[in-house]
């Protein structure tokens, strides 16, 4: 029931393309039987009129793609309809549509660059450097633009001159900061030329993520020698070599040879790189490279085995630090705008703790110490004394004294899991007030795989009659959205969910009143049911497997570096069902890394 409610507003479909196609028979039958009650004539739900096409036997290609997306996700007809197609009927209809219009698909470009987290991860793992002049290595680079929700998206990771310059500057800074003793170890013992060649091979292979030929090694070594001159000592020569390796396009760029018509399986090295950048935000280690070289990554079992090993490695902490924070929209929480005069105590340090609370919960899930559902069901959390004080949680004496993080239970008035985290509640607020719209949108987008479509064309952002806000409660303001039917169709859903979080202020503390109005967090869903506060929202998103599908979709986007397309729906859906049953994060990772999308390249669509 709930899933149907959540999804019902994601109806926007691809607009009218000129091409029309014949409606395949099984689809026609399904539309007649299950869809036309609501999608007939001028009052069609969601503006999707299907009776005309069914009568003609022909349908706009874009509309058919939209139908396919809904059928693939099995969320139309709504789950609360008494009569729904069987799984076999759904599958047959989707297959029939795919035979008429190929589902939209996407492929990552052949060449993409590392993002700054991956660059810093490689520097940490290959050169052992985590800080330069006291600052983390990634701070040497400008923040990356974000696309499709993540900073791993290939098309958004541009390389303007400014970025190239920063990468070169950062390489020089790292090379200069390499401790003399580390340089002393590089290349082992032996005569200078042999030593230089050994260092070039070790660093080059680790950074370029593959074996190097003799010629490649010699070229690196020769160039490093030439850079500093023949009389230079070992240290400056090694620093020059390190700089060279860090600036080299074989390091900075990820290049996968384009695929021919039928696609191709990626090479072992290519799969190894994908695994390492996904699970570690870094380059492969020697074990992963050895597996690649030995053919160990050519089979699903081999890939699965490496993924299991890698998830248990501390480097997999990057999944919490880079994936979770972007999925849950709490990245760079320290830089979010808040009203500093009203929320004086909410400084950067406290906000760091807020973010870390969310990262810690996710990390436990990623390590397999808690099931995936803990993210929306956990009734306990880990907090620092500072964060506990902010929440109003009791702080044990020893923690108060030491400042150490401690585990505690979440009081019943707060929703479970990340839905009650201050980081999330802050990230979805305006600087000086809560935003039920943002909170509702966040739940639909991040938690329920039911991102509301943007407002339809032609709808003014603010209704002209939205005057005289002063003195009204947020609930009264939200009611304005319903005055315009175009807004209402989605906003009643977003707003109902968002308003259920009103007991939490813009920085995530509980409150009993706002702007002189008593808090009322009992809201009504469009179908007449009531939501009693944020806890009920958690229960709502927990129904069905929408939560797992949302997590799968976001994690796959992060892993692959591109947005998901229709063609990805079937495998993502099947994966979500599996993870719903097992509750294991590892299964989710296995499903992604053994997918065709991860292990193969197809030609660009």
């Amino acid at each position, binding site marked *: 029931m709930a899933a149907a409610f959540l999804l019902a507003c994601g109806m926007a479909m691809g607009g009218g393309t000129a091409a029309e196609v014949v409606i395949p028979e099984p689809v026609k039958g399904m539309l007649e039987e299950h869809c036309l009650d609501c999608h007939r004539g001028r009052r069609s739900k969601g503006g999707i009129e299907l009776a005309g096409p069914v009568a003609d036997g022909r349908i706009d290609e874009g509309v058919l793609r939209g139908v396919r997306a809904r059928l693939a996700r099995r969320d139309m007809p709504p789950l609360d309809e008494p009569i729904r197609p069987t799984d076999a009927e759904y599958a047959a209809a989707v297959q029939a549509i795919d035979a008429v219009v190929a589902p939209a698909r*996407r492929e990552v470009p*052949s*060449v993409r660059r590392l993002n700054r987290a991956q660059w810093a991860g490689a520097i940490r793992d290959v050169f052992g450097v985590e800080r330069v002049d006291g600052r983390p290595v990634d701070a040497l680079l*400008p*923040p990356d*633009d*974000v*696309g*499709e*929700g*993540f900073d791993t*998206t290939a*098309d*958004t990771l*541009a*390389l*303007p*001159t*400014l970025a*190239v*310059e920063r990468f*070169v500057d950062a390489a*020089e800074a790292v090379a200069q900061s390499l401790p003399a003793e580390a340089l002393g170890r590089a290349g082992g013992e032996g005569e200078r030329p042999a030593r230089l060649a050994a260092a070039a091979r070790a660093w080059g292979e680790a950074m370029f993520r593959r074996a190097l030929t003799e010629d490649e090694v010699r070229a690196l070594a020769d*160039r490093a020698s030439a850079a*500093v001159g023949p009389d230079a000592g070992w240290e*400056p020569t090694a*620093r*020059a070599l390190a*700089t*060279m390796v860090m*600036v*080299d*396009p*074989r390091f*900075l*760029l990820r290049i996968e*040879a384009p695929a021919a018509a039928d696609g191709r399986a990626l090479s072992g090295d290519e799969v190894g790189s994908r695994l390492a950048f996904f699970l570690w935000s870094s380059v492969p280690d020697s074990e992963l490279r050895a597996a690649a070289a030995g053919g160990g990554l050519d089979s699903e079992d081999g890939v699965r085995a490496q993924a299991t090993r890698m998830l248990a490695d501390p480097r997999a902490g990057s999944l919490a630090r880079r994936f979770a924070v*972007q999925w849950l*929209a709490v*990245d*760079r929480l320290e830089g979010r*705008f808040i*009203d*500093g*005069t009203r929320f004086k105590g909410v400084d950067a340090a406290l906000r760091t703790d807020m973010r870390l609370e969310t990262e810690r919960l996710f990390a436990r899930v990623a390590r397999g110490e808690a099931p995936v559902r803990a993210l929306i069901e956990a009734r306990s959390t880990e907090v620092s004394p500072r964060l506990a004080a902010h929440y109003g949680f009791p702080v044990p004496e020893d923690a108060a004294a030491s400042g150490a993080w401690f585990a505690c239970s979440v009081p019943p008035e707060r929703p479970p899991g990340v839905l009650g985290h201050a980081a999330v509640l802050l990230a979805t607020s*305006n*600087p*000086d007030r809560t935003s039920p719209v943002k909170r509702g949108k966040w739940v639909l987008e991040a938690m329920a795989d039911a991102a509301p479509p*943007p*407002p339809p*064309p*032609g*709808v003014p952002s*603010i209704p002209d009659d939205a*005057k*005289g*806000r*002063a003195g009204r409660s947020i609930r009264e303001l939200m009611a304005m959205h319903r005055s315009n039917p175009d807004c209402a169709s989605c906003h009643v859903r977003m707003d109902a969910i968002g308003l259920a979080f009103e007991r939490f202020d813009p920085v995530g503390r509980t409150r009993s009143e706002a702007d002189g109005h008593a808090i009322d967090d009992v809201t009504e869903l469009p179908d007449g049911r009531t939501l009693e506060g944020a806890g009920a929202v958690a229960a709502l998103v927990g129904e069905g497997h929408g939560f797992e599908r949302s997590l799968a979709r976001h994690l796959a986007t992060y892993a692959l570096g*591109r*947005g998901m397309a229709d063609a990805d729906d079937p495998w993502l859906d099947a994966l979500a069902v599996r993870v719903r049953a097992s509750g294991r994060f590892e299964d989710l990772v296995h499903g992604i890394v053994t997918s065709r999308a991860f292990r193969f390249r197809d030609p660009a669509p």
Partner: protein
Amino acid sequence: MRAPIVDRRTVLRGIGATIALPWLEAMAPRGLAIGRAAAAMSAATARPARTAFLFFPNGVNPSAWATPMDGLTTWHATGALEPLAEFRGRIAMHTGLTHANAAALGDGPGDHARSAACFLTGAHPRKTAGDDLRNGRSIDQEIADAVARSARPTRLRSLELGSEPPMTAGNCDSGYSCAYSANISWKADNLPNGKETDPRKAFDRVFGRTGESPEARAARERVRRSVLDGAVSQARELGARLGAADRGRLDEYLDGVRDLERRLDADAGAHLDPGTTLPDFEGAPKTVAGRIDLLGEVLALAFRTDATRVATLMLANEGSNRPYPEVDVSSGHHDVSHHGGDAAKMEAFARINRFHAERFAAFLRALDRTREDGVSLLDSTVVLYGGAITDGNRHNHDDLPVLVAGGAATGVSGGSVLRSPHGTPLCNLHLSIAERMGARLDRFGDSSGRVALG
């Protein structure tokens, strides 16, 4: 907060080892005898033309942006424009200019993302959350090309500055990638230039690393030359194995590396006059105003030393929801721009409009204080100040708020209102600015002609 930028022979502080060189020498290509280089430059060309584009987001409160009534030919520094009083005689107000491509055109909401993307490109950006970004090329990059092709190319093709880093949410505005909202300078239709937001880093980028000794710098540059050389040959080798359509980022990489190589060749190192007082990075207040004004000072110095002749400065990202406690606005900027007629919000919005005008004035002041052969730098600089949303509450893109500042040598007719017929493309003005910078284009974006500067 700001240390005055004085002509010569004043205090040198803040920076370690800045070597003093008269700017003409500093500009001389390496290897040329200074005398020859200087002689090669006539007095007339010695003071190059410069252009800066200053962008502010979220439109204006029209009642605060004091456009004079029809028929009047001069404007007055009132309302949000009051801080510009001292420069009124060097600022022309344009009316009637439009960015038609910032409108939905069937793509639905997303006016903020489209506005930043369209501001200097005149293009209608492709609606995408990240995959397959498409926008136009921006006018500053056309100008940068013209400068690069000229007899006296600058070290930096162009300089991109801004006060906010890119946003972290993937979808900043109704299905548009944040890259659109955070960039006004586009080198190619899929290549936003990014921007430097840290004044100190911007300074180091223009003038070299502060605190680095000449010996250390020479040693580093020697290695860098070799590193870049190796990078170029590697990139070429990799590129040879890929078709043109697949090279993508590899070509961007190659362009960037070559640009750095070229800079090593063109670069004699130190550029600042003896005694130039440097921006006070440590002492400046850690406020929005402090940050923006420092960026403006760095930009003025970059112009002064001819490190670049074209630059962009985003006072904030489009759609920014930053509060402005400095002017007592605790709500977010975007939030108050959609005031819905609420008097308190409208007033707060106007204060932000005014605050940004103050930043514009501070930049003009930095230019004006900076002297070049005794003449104000503003004299040879055109500064376009504006945005691609008109009324922040309505999201319209016609009759955009646009001011153009420029001194005596620029042809800007200060104090006047230059009225174009309603619906005239803003790109017509971009064309004229580009032309003045030596970029002769027949068309740009959706241009339909020219809008004169004066």
